[in-house]
């Protein structure tokens, strides 16, 4: 019996390759920041905005400026002298808690934390792969820290587009389509991304393996718009800019609250009914009652005509017939898709849609104002950071008397007359 040489050789190659280079399975901390002992920059309130502490003073409070969750339910933060414990809950109704220790650079980390959840702050280089938070990057002016976002094709913010064009910001995909090589080369201190309860949907195990740290962003699951807005503070915590975040959130919240108050003073006079979304085949997706978008509509004093149809499922939907029964009398229709350029297009999609009164009244709106291309929609990037503007648009559209002279940011009416194609 002669052993074929190719067989032995191939087996040796496989075994050799597997064992020779197999030592890199523990995330090495070599990816974290290099201690930089140059001068520290401080914020007005005394947080360290850049640089690392040279000699640790255990009695000093390194975070004089602090934030906390005001409306948000899915994070809490606990400040210690030189570190913050940020606890994130992916969904309100799970028992999963993810705890991060955000440690002032140059000071010792607390014990009891997985190395992957210890992040040195202020973060110098970060990636944020969730486009809902582009508005946060813009508002907080994080362009010098954020090196990577997920996809270029959804960006509408001019400053971000410029950064992408220059190459100071890169697109690295997200989740399973993460461009790991680019991400590794960019050496971010942390990647903030969408977190799902289903494990194989999150940033894959490879991210852990290569030593990159990820942080969960789940603000878009908050039930209230102000709760979602609070997550601007979470992002700010990574760069020690709680002071700025508090100011911004306070300002936006105040405006939001004043708008809401105005609506409440007006309540009881007439209730405007609205419907949302549009049919895909015979399937009509409904708004979820536990979404901030729904709460926003409530704050605008509107009544969801489809409310009786919503059930407990993750993606409630209904049929066209039921939608007509409940929604035909609704006054306004939000969420028109890009392809409806006029109300004639609506009828062309399905003649039965003319049953909806909102169509005849010309009160169909899309969220696509300012969208230069199909995917570059300012609303998608800014809704989380600017709930006041969104609420303002909704109120102005449904109760114009309450906001005379309002400039629309996101809502765009679908015109009644057929437009030239």
């Amino acid at each position, binding site marked *: 019996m002669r052993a074929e040489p190719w067989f032995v050789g191939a087996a040796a190659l496989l075994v050799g390759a597997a064992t020779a280079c197999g030592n890199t399975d523990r995330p090495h901390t070599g990816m974290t920041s290099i201690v930089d002992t140059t001068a520290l920059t401080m914020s007005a309130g005394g947080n360290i905005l850049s640089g690392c502490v040279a000699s640790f003073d255990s009695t000093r409070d390194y975070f004089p400026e602090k934030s906390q969750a005001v409306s948000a339910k899915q994070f809490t933060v606990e400040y210690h002298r030189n570190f913050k414990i940020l606890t994130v809950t992916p969904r309100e109704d799970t028992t999963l808690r993810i705890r991060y220790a955000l440690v002032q650079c140059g000071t010792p980390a607390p014990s009891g934390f997985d190395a992957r959840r210890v992040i040195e702050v202020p973060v110098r280089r970060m990636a944020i792969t969730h486009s809902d938070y582009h508005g946060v990057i813009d508002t907080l002016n994080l362009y010098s820290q954020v090196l990577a976002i997920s996809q270029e094709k959804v960006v509408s913010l001019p400053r971000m587009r410029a950064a992408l064009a220059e190459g100071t910001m890169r697109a690295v995909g997200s989740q399973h389509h993460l461009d790991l090589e680019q991400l590794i080369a960019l050496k971010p201190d942390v990647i903030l991304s969408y977190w799902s309860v289903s494990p194989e*949907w999150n940033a894959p195990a490879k991210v852990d393996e290569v030593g990159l740290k990820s942080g969960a962003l789940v603000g878009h699951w908050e039930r209230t718009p102000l709760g979602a807005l609070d997550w601007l503070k979470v992002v700010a915590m990574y760069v020690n800019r709680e002071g700025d975040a508090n100011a911004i959130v306070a300002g936006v919240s105040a405006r939001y609250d004043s708008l809401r108050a105005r609506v409440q003073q007006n309540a009881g006079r007439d209730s405007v009914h609205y419907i949302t979304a549009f049919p895909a085949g015979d399937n009509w997706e409904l708004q979820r009652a536990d979404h901030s978008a729904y709460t926003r509509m409530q704050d605008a004093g509107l009544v969801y005509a489809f409310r009786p149809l919503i059930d407990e499922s993750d993606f409630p939907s209904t049929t066209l017939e039921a939608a007509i029964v409940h929604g035909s009398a609704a006054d306004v229709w939000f969420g028109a898709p890009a392809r409806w350029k006029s109300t004639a297009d609506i009828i062309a999609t399905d003649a039965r849609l003319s049953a909806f009164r909102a169509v005849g009244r010309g009160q169909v709106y899309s969220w696509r104002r300012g969208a230069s291309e199909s995917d570059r929609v300012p609303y998608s990037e800014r809704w989380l950071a600017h709930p006041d503007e969104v609420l303002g648009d909704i109120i102005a559209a449904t109760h114009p008397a309450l906001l005379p002279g309002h400039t629309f940011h996101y809502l765009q009416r679908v015109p009644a007359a057929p437009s030239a194609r």
Partner: protein
Amino acid sequence: MTSVAMPAARGATSAALLTRFALLAAATALAFLLELAVGTVRIPFSDVVSILSGGASTDESWRTIVQTVRLPRALTAATGGAALGASGLVLQTLFRNRLAGPWLLGVTGGARLGVALMIVAVSWSGYFLPAQLGIPGSVGVALSASVGALGALLIMALAARRVGTVSLLLLGVMITFLATGASSVLMHLVSEDQGRVWEAWNDGNFGGVTWANLRVLLPLLLLGTLLAVALMKSLDALTLGERYAESMGVSVRRIRWVALAAVALLSGATTAFCGVVAFLDIAVPQIARRIIASTEHRFLMPATLLLGAALAMYADLLAHVPIGNRILHLNAITSVLGAPVVIWMLLRKSGAANGDT
């Protein structure tokens, strides 16, 4: 292509066969080098060599890229592709059917269902990340996939006695639908985003495998390959059917179990870590037969292993180098390459005339 009189008859391995193997090996080696050298970040080849031989590198992040991103991906693609090819070859001979393979016959579907059951069971017990539990989690995933694969294989083996070729293939497709549907329903119990999970699972991917996973995957694939290699001579006899094979000295019952075990391991473990990869299991043995022009499994098996590794690596290269700002899915590439092979195979005359497909 007319068959060539068996080279062994002439008393020595013919030069032509040797040359073809050499070319095949060279193509595979080239693919491996390309997987290490090419990526979205440009790294000079000298640095790649230096990193692999334990030396220094101009940029430390390059070391991470080569050692933790490119090398595992190359190894996964090579071994996964070889494993899928080999399992296709074994099933094609066992079922005497050129279209057989774990993918079409529902075996990878069964593997997926096995993993889905495991994830659901594990998540009910309070843990969430089986694939990220390191070695024990990886073992669990690989074993549950292999068990699921074996289940589907047993159904097919029983059915093969009762139904004809076409019905058998359709049965395999039905099993795939059943398994993926059931997986989706199961995942719905643990995941709020069922649609995305479905998409992720249908999408084969060699790039998501960690070194911890490889510590489990490589030995399992090695074991499966050894079994497949041990089967080579029996597979020769089995081309004439079980009765003749037994009359020629093959213990058919035992060999059947070894073959099923080999296929379950090879396709189950690969599917567990790489998701469902389409077409390689059917197309690679067919192309190998053309290249090697021999029906002896002692040549076919190594040729299939090499070719499977090579094609998987080339497909993987295409799948992660962005073309026009987008990434192609692995299964799109393997389908575009593999489906024409199958179509051509179905249409060419000599196969059809024999009533054998």
